[in-house]
């Protein structure tokens, strides 16, 4: 009896899921009836395989949280030993002298943006004045983006979402201890990230003449921004970092665990370069991935 009740209540609570499932079935059924030609079969199989692989990668990614709790930096050190990367081990140990904690970010192509988002959020949670300044910058971006010709109401939608989120932090509608855990909610966090991607692209577009020469494959800056920055799940590169940091008007430091990767050949690099004071937000770069790290007090 109890089981039956349980089932029925589940059915009631998830009509959407049911509808989806039946829709899928409907799509699938004609495919079974129609014989395909063999070459197309082959191509489809190949594509299906690729889809499966992509799905698998996505599922593996999803086992990690979008943003982890603060954990001791030693975790990074322990990832390496003399067999799998003596170089990395040495660098990690050196960094462990300066940095105490790390927040690991899910590697889904948004890690840079997400790390910066968490970094900025922590800053505005701590410092009310900073929060107000940050809000003004964000509010200013709506008009700047529309002026650049970004599609009107979707852009406004993303900007409004971000601005009202910052406001709710400032006026404590959101409890401070819930803000960071809230960033682990896919939809919410990704919506905020789209805003960061848009303003990053917006800043570069505002300075087209300055930045266009850096794009090497002959793409125009606006094509580059469309395909590399505004598109979700695309890894950031140097231009994207410059764009976001300038758009937010908040400096960041990136510690490179691979010495050769730092643009100046050193351990770390500040965006924008040559800051008078060490930036408060520090990211750790390992090939293809960014995490957020914290200095020792």
């Amino acid at each position, binding site marked *: 009896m109890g089981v039956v009740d349980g089932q029925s209540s589940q059915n009631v609570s998830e009509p959407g899921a049911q509808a989806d499932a039946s829709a899928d079935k409907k799509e699938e059924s004609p495919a079974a009836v129609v014989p395909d030609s063999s070459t197309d079969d082959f191509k489809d199989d190949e594509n299906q395989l690729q889809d499966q692989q992509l799905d698998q990668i996505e599922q593996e990614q999803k086992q990690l949280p979008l943003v982890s709790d603060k954990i001791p930096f030693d975790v990074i050190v322990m990832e390496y030993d003399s067999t799998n990367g003596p170089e990395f081990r040495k660098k990690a140990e050196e960094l462990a002298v300066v940095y105490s904690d790390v927040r690991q970010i899910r590697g889904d192509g948004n890690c840079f943006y997400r790390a910066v988002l968490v970094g900025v959020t922590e800053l505005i949670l701590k410092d009310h004045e900073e929060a107000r300044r940050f809000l003004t910058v964000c509010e200013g971006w709506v008009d700047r983006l529309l002026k650049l010709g970004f599609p009107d109401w979707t852009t406004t939608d993303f900007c409004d979402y971000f601005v009202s989120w910052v406001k709710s932090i400032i006026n404590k509608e959101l409890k401070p201890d819930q803000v960071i855990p809230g960033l682990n909610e896919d939809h919410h966090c*990704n919506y905020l990230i789209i805003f960061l991607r848009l303003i990053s692209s917006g800043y570069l577009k505002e300075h087209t003449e300055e930045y266009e020469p850096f794009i090497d494959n002959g793409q125009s800056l606006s094509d580059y921004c469309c395909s590399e920055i505004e598109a979700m799940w695309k890894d950031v590169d140097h231009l994207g970092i410059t764009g976001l940091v300038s758009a937010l008007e908040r400096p960041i430091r990136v510690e490179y665990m691979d010495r050769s990767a730092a643009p100046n050949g050193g351990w770390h690099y500040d965006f924008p370069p040559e800051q008078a004071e060490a930036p408060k937000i520090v990211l750790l770069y390992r090939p293809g991935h960014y995490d957020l790290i914290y200095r020792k007090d």
Partner: protein
Amino acid sequence: MSGQQYNTKCAGVKRLMKEAMELREPTEMYYAQPLEDNLFEWHFTIRGTLGTDFDGGIYHGRIIFPPEYPMKPPNMIILTPNGRFELNRKICLSISGYHPETWLPSWSIRTALLALIGFFYRPQEPEPWEVWNIRRQNAKRLAKISAKWRCSVCDCTMKDVLLPLTDENKTKDENEEATRLAAQLKFSDEATKKKEIEEATASEETTAIEDVAVEESPPVVAEAAATPPVAEPNLSPRLTRPRPSDTCDYSMFLIVPVCVVALAIFMLLLSRRVLSS
């Protein structure tokens, strides 16, 4: 939508609801609304690209949204026979040549619809002129009868869905925007499953159109009979990718030799008469 409980705090749900509000009034070129019981599936109606073979056509289809929308692109499925897209097959939208992931979250359903309108027309592909011509004729014919197509889910006939075309500049602008978007974007067939699906075996939504097609067929047959060689393949409502064997005209292999032989006999007889006299 009323029976369903969606988490309205979820940004994607909010966005879809906003888009539904934004698109609630039909325009001259497009109209799209969610199904009553599922916010993540919509039905849309669009006009064929003005000034092309699809001008005059009104086409209906489904939009399926992934739970991650707008981070991931919607899939579109065309239901009205059109001579351009295969029926009941997902087409997804992306920037030309890249993964579907290169869909931009700042695009909207409106963008997708306009791009689809613009994407109906495509320049002539490298194929025999005759095949191309059949394709065009077929598209034109299907465009003509599409107004009578009926969607059983929405309970509406195509000709009643959109606002009647006027000379308004807005529509022209949208048509131009559609063409421009189509040049910028790419619709790719969803990598997997369904190939050419025969009209007869398609899901029940399409059965409704069969009646219309039958109703309409007599004048078409007459028209087609006047141009004998292309008549048969032209009748098939599914003609998105004709196979060479469907369209190649083998009758010439018979007619030409027969004519040659007949002519030779005639000449022979003629020459005998001339010579004997």
